[in-house]
């Protein structure tokens, strides 16, 4: 039997996940551009919020939105993220990744947790313990979600 988890008031959802969303965006885009992307992520979440059917996997859901917005930012021509990073003396962010954008498209139909695990692992190269934390679960659960996501993609690809 499946538990019905009601969708919480948006305030509770926002308070619970805003730091994880900002952390992800700041790592991808640098602090400056992460601020706009942060606002866009939660505005997009607000637009979709009335259509949510249950309150499970909300962290995976919102991280997936954030990740998609980060991809859009990368695709924009005036990408100054790498430059900002150098100016700040930080490690340069990964190259704009066509492969990683393609991965996001490819995984569109996976269940939210599996999708987030696959994208965070293979798109962002995050270690499983960090993915576990981002998804609000454990390292082992993140590993399992990623591997079942990959299996599902293989099955679908074989069809």
């Amino acid at each position, binding site marked *: 039997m499946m538990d019905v988890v009601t969708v919480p*008031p*948006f*305030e509770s959802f*926002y308070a619970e996940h805003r730091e994880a969303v900002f952390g992800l965006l700041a790592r991808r885009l640098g*602090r400056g551009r992460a601020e706009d992307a*942060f606002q866009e992520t939660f*505005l997009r979440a*607000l637009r979709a*919020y*009335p259509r949510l059917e249950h309150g499970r996997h909300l962290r995976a859901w919102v991280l997936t939105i954030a990740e998609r917005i980060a991809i859009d930012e990368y695709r924009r021509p005036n990408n100054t993220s790498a430059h900002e990073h150098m100016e700040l003396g930080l490690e340069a962010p990964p190259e704009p990744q066509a492969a990683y954008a393609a991965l996001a498209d490819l995984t569109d139909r996976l269940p939210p947790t599996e999708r987030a695990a696959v994208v965070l692992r293979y798109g962002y190269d995050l270690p499983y313990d960090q993915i576990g934390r981002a998804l609000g679960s454990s390292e082992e659960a993140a590993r399992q979600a990623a591997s079942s996501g990959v299996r599902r993609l293989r099955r679908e690809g074989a069809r």
Partner: protein
Amino acid sequence: MNTVTPELDRRFRDAAAAAGLLDVAYDVVDSPLGPLLVAVSERGLCKIAFDPDGQLEPLARSYGRRVLRSARPVDPVRRQLDEYFEGTRHEFELPLDLTVGEFYAQVLGELARVPYGETTTYGALAARTGHPKGARAIGTVMHNNPVPIVLPCHRVIGSNGSLTGYGGGLPAKRFLLELERGGTLF
């Protein structure tokens, strides 16, 4: 540190309201009676609560789950409450957006007509709404008044002159009646 700054947080809350994406915006407003939770929709004032805790779930059930703390939409209510507590405002000019049934709407409509600085009784209000024996039912409506202060349930007292009860506590009721009499406070 990669944390959400108060500026970024406020920017998002402003943007969410400005984009018209909220079912309910709320804020916690300081008052002489302590912090008040004030909630508004785009149609009007939904809720004033003496206890800010535990209000979000009921608001989400009645108005929709996009309930977010956002200061700006609450500003007109905040301003009028400030004026009221300073004694310079005797009537509120605020549209209301209440999710109450017919009986409540009727009783609260009568309540709204009790003038500043005056009191009435539960029995008199019952008679005016056509339920002369319904003083107790009127008491229940007053107790569940979604927007106390603005709809002046503090102006309704027992027929023997006792204050009877108040959602914000009897000292709050006494305070409001004193304020409206123009008396010196404390």
